[in-house]
């Protein structure tokens, strides 16, 4: 099954990329734009069943994929696969 990991900068951590996007959107006339934050999405294919797959991916996040000082993460199992 495919597991997605959504990684976002923690609130309070400077996100200059999000800020740059926000400024660009406003410059383009999208005055509705509020705060913009930029993160990343990682997709991993695993053979295991959902519960076990989530457990493994959580360990991956702790060991490598996420820097817990500056990032929060959310594991999303893709039910369709």
């Amino acid at each position, binding site marked *: 099954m495919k597991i997605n990991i959504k990684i976002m900068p923690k609130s309070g*951590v*400077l996100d*200059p*990329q999000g800020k*740059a996007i926000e400024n660009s959107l406003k410059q383009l006339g999208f005055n509705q734009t509020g705060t913009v934050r930029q993160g990343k999405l990682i997709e991993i294919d695993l053979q295991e069943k959902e519960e076990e797959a989530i457990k493994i991916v959580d360990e991956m996040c702790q*060991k*490598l*994929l996420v*820097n817990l*000082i*500056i990032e929060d993460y959310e594991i999303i199992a893709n039910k369709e696969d």
Partner: protein
Amino acid sequence: MKAAIIVFPGSNCDRDIAVSLKKISEIEPLMIWHKETCIPDCDIIVVPGGFSFGDYLRCGSMAANSPIMLDVIHKAKKGMPTIGICNGFQILTETGLLPGTLIKNDCLSFLCKTVSIKVENSNTKFSNLYSKNEVIDIPIAHNEGNFFADDSTLNKIKDNDQIVFKYCNNSGKTEKEFNPNGSIENIAGIINKDGNVLGMMPHPERATCQLSQLNDGERFFSSITESIL
């Protein structure tokens, strides 16, 4: 005396470090490929600058999990003098040997220039030949040099006198305007609580030769000899 210089795919300051260690510290450099699992007998470990693993995922994150790093962490925890410069600093924070982390420069651009830094702590193995509050000129070259730590970590760093270098102007003022990358408290280099692991973004190895017309990095390397001998 021997130094183990850890080389990753994408390291690019390994040779400069080796030249400075040999010439100024009079330490024989050993180049250790990251896939090795054991560091040979040595007196100091250096994690050099560069773009290990192309800076993929986060700067230093892949390198921090390379096979050799288990032995680096083991030896550093037992007191081995260990230095991380630029990408090496990022790698050491990713291993947890140093507190905090390094995020993108607040100016959003890669910075490559000579900056003034102030010696905040001259009582370390790596800064003992500088005077406290001395201002030295050392080049920086990074995209992610913006040191970040949460408030409680930062307070501990300050309370334990772990800040070794701060960005400043040429008269030693450390106001925000003299901070090139947004680093918290203008931090350019820190040391661990035990005083044997140093991380810094500026490159002292680039301030040790006539060509660069900078020599403030020389005492960094002679400090090492002084403290290890």
